[in-house]
């Protein structure tokens, strides 16, 4: 177990849980503007992203498919005195939730390309093309994003930005890149998604 300080909060990292990294910080920065009532975090890992804005939320539902990650997140909310706002669930993306509206939805999913086809490490592998989680997220998002709500997620330029934006468009929503950081071989972006505003006559 390691321990670090992320955006003013104490964060412990359990064995086997994805530690706060560049992509985590990129999403934290993108979320800095604006508060929200009810939020949903998917692929929450240590919970560091949600924790960074938990002060500004009424409640946050945090999900991860890995039971150790959810336990880790709960521990971090307790350590920072914010567990009263947290509802933690072990589950696969939106699947354990009934259709409802969140003001804010965010996710830092596993998106690394994994062309080997071998057993996948769920904490980082995005499957072939890295889109295993991203595609399912975009497909399900419409049923959970409030009318005025916004969703933010991280992906790599290698996953195909246009592919995501086209898919978002196809689901009747609007996506745009709101932040970007470049590395040697790839870039990381945060994509923001909103419902398409009603057409004016």
């Amino acid at each position: 177990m390691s321990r670090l300080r992320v955006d003013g909060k104490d964060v412990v990292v359990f064995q086997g849980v994805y530690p706060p990294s560049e992509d985590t910080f990129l999403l934290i920065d993108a979320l800095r503007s604006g508060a929200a009532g009810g939020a949903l975090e998917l692929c929450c890992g240590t919970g560091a992203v949600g924790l960074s804005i938990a002060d500004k939320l009424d409640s946050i539902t945090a999900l991860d498919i890995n039971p150790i990650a959810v336990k880790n997140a709960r521990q971090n909310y307790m350590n920072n005195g914010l567990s009263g706002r947290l509802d933690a669930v072990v589950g696969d993306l939106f699947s354990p939730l009934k259709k409802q509206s969140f003001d804010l939805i965010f996710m830092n999913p596993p998106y690394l390309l994994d062309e080997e086809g071998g057993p996948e490490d769920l904490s980082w592998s995005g499957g072939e093309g890295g889109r295993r989680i991203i595609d399912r997220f975009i497909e399900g998002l419409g049923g959970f994003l409030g009318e005025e709500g916004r969703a933010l997620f991280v992906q790599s330029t290698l996953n195909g930005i246009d592919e995501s934006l086209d898919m978002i468009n196809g689901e009747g929503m609007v996506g745009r890149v709101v932040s970007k950081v470049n590395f040697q071989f790839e870039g990381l972006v945060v994509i923001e998604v909103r419902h398409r505003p009603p057409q004016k006559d």
Partner: protein
Amino acid sequence: MKRRLLDILACPICKHHPLELRVFEEKEEIDEGILLCTGCGRWYPIIESIPHMLPDDLRDRKEDANFLLKWKRLIPDAVLKEGKP
């Protein structure tokens, strides 16, 4: 797990809502208990205050068995005999 979570949970398999809650241990939150889906007969354990709502193929069989054994006396017969998966 807080009781308010019941308002937003659905069965991950058949999407039935609401789920039925049986509490085994409760202090500030529900520490141990079970969520029952009356739609498809599945059950989901609440372990250390966290509901585990995974699809069948991702469930931890050993953990499920331990959970059923630990709370055998409090788990409805229907779950022990006919509960899925």
